[in-house]
């Protein structure tokens, strides 16, 4: 039983990072129907920014985190302005291909600047086990979980309670009607990209700290899994992304713990296929979609 609980905590820690990244996918999809394949790379950029700050300055962890999130948000908005906005009226497939292009561009840019070898992330959070009853929980795991939950609640409040949040929901429901109501659509889309990218960067920094390394292809696999999480939960739905992230994290951990670690990826990706066959709209997806 203790072992099972221990594994559950491991699953939560992996899942919370997937959930954070999945939020970026789902919000952008909700508002402009684009699967932003460059999102995993924004996560990588966020991790590199934190790495540079941690190596060159002695700023406290939380400040490094915030600076990295803000800068990544700016980059996210920039990507949207440069690569996606001119294609707003183009067929959706063009934008999708552009997104893949941006993803490769950012990856190769990082490759040129930082080289392929993994950089070691300084220990921003001191790594040691904390005993909770019979369980051993790492400091990094606790921090990851706490930060993820805080930012998820903040996002939920923002979308539900504030005016810009309301505008986001309106644009995702019906863009043209939103314009008629006097909502600045482009600004709202930029805001969505900014928030999504900031959360992606948070995921990236936590990923870098948890796994001690930063490298140019860091965003690829977690990005892909977060995308699956978003689809699994019901793409376009914020609670769906969070649920999907935790479900994927749990499945991965349980597979590794009780079956075999070689199979965990195969099982996660297989799950995506099954969900798409049985319930194409995802776990929380309904026919009349309630979007971001």
């Amino acid at each position: 039983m203790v072992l099972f609980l221990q594994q559950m905590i491991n699953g939560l820690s992996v899942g919370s990072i997937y959930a954070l990244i999945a939020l970026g996918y789902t919000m952008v999809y909700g508002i402009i129907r684009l699967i932003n394949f460059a999102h995993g790379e924004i996560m990588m950029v966020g991790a590199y920014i934190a790495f540079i700050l941690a190596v060159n300055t002695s700023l406290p962890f939380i400040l490094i985190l915030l600076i990295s999130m803000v800068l990544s948000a700016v980059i996210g908005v920039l990507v949207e302005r440069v690569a996606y906005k001119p294609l707003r009226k183009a067929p959706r497939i063009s934008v999708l291909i552009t997104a893949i292009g941006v993803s490769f561009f950012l990856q190769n840019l990082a490759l040129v600047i930082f080289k392929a070898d993994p950089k070691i992330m300084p220990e921003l959070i001191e790594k040691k086990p904390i005993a909770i009853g019979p369980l051993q929980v790492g400091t990094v795991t606790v921090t990851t979980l706490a930060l993820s939950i805080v930012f998820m609640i903040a996002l939920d409040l923002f979308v539900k309670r504030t005016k810009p949040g309301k505008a986001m929901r309106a644009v995702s429901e019906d863009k043209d009607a939103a314009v008629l109501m006097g909502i600045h659509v482009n600004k709202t889309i930029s805001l969505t990209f900014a928030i999504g990218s900031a959360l992606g960067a948070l995921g990236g920094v936590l990923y870098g700290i948890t796994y001690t390394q930063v490298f140019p292809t860091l965003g690829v696999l977690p990005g892909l899994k977060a995308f699956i999480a978003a689809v699994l939960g019901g793409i376009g739905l914020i609670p769906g992304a969070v649920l999907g992230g935790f479900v994927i994290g749990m499945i991965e951990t349980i597979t590794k713990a009780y079956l075999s670690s070689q199979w965990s990826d195969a099982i996660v990706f297989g799950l995506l296929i099954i969900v798409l066959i049985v319930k194409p709209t995802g776990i929380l997806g309904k026919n009349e979609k309630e979007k971001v």
Partner: protein
Amino acid sequence: MKKSLALLMAMVMILSLALAGCAKSDADSVIKLGVIGPMTGDYSMYGTAVAEGAKLAAKEINAAGGVNGATIDIIAYDSKGDKTEAVNAYNRLRDQDGIKGLIGGTFSGETLAIKEIAVGDNMPVLTPTATHSDVTLNAPNVFRACYTDPYQGATAAKFATEQLGAKTAAVLYNIEDAYSDGLANAFNTKFAELGTITDFEGYTTKDADFKAVLTKIADKDPDVIFLPDYTAKVGVILSQIKELGIDVIAIGGDGWDGIEADYADVAEGHYFANHYAKTDSAQIVQDFIAAYEKEYGKTPSALAALGYDSTYIMAQAMEKAKSTEAQKVVDALAKTDGDYVTGHITFDANGDPVKSISIIQIVNGEHKLAAKVSGE
């Protein structure tokens, strides 16, 4: 038009043949030895380390009077870690430079690619670092200075049981990597004879999260955990072992060399098998380290030590043979018996070294020679 072109080409070919002929003839007072390895790209540190070690050895040998009155000249070519490039480099070394022996290749893959041609040429080949077991198989002229993957894995198992008194062990290895897989299986087989393997788990190169599998391993409370992978991955695993607070001794292979640079705190107290120990007090080891540091301003890696040893072994074989004639050198190589930086070396029937393995413990972020274990 076509005729004149054909004539031109014929002339170019004749000229190039004549020039190639010239290049070969002036090599009497110089014995050229080739080095092949990745000198650029992601793995450049491996090839350059071997070349630096070899050049240092050549410099010392020449300063001491050379071999049979001739000086040794090391010619190093870049393989970029690629098999085709390695074969091209070998052809160039043989045809253009007229080498009398090859110190290389650096990787197993490139050495295997060169092997067939080299066997046909009966070229004396001594690879410093190719660990794959097939490298020396059915190739009487191919030798190696490093030990093989299975030998290393089995020795690590022997060390765990005999010196650490381990009764139970877990193995966690990279299923996508031949090196990791080879070590893991050899360790598994050997340890199973002496104790119990509690878990034999694999992961893939892209895996970053080991908490689940480590929690599973920790539940059976093994005495040691065997982690045969390279520094970048081992560092991640050791960090998570520390974070989960698992009390286990980790053992690794020569892939751990250099782990103290980035992961000193998480690797503290753990052991790994290596080709030589920097803190080995033997005179030959300390002399080598001092000379290398003076020449290049950095501490030599295990690969540099192997490149250095290989050059000495090759030069001594030529001296013993009193000739650079291929068959005589090969015969002399087979009779090698001496003390080198990476240990006492003799060759078995395959051309694989019979040597002791240094087991190193990371203590206060430094290498400490914990034991010298002879395998098998």
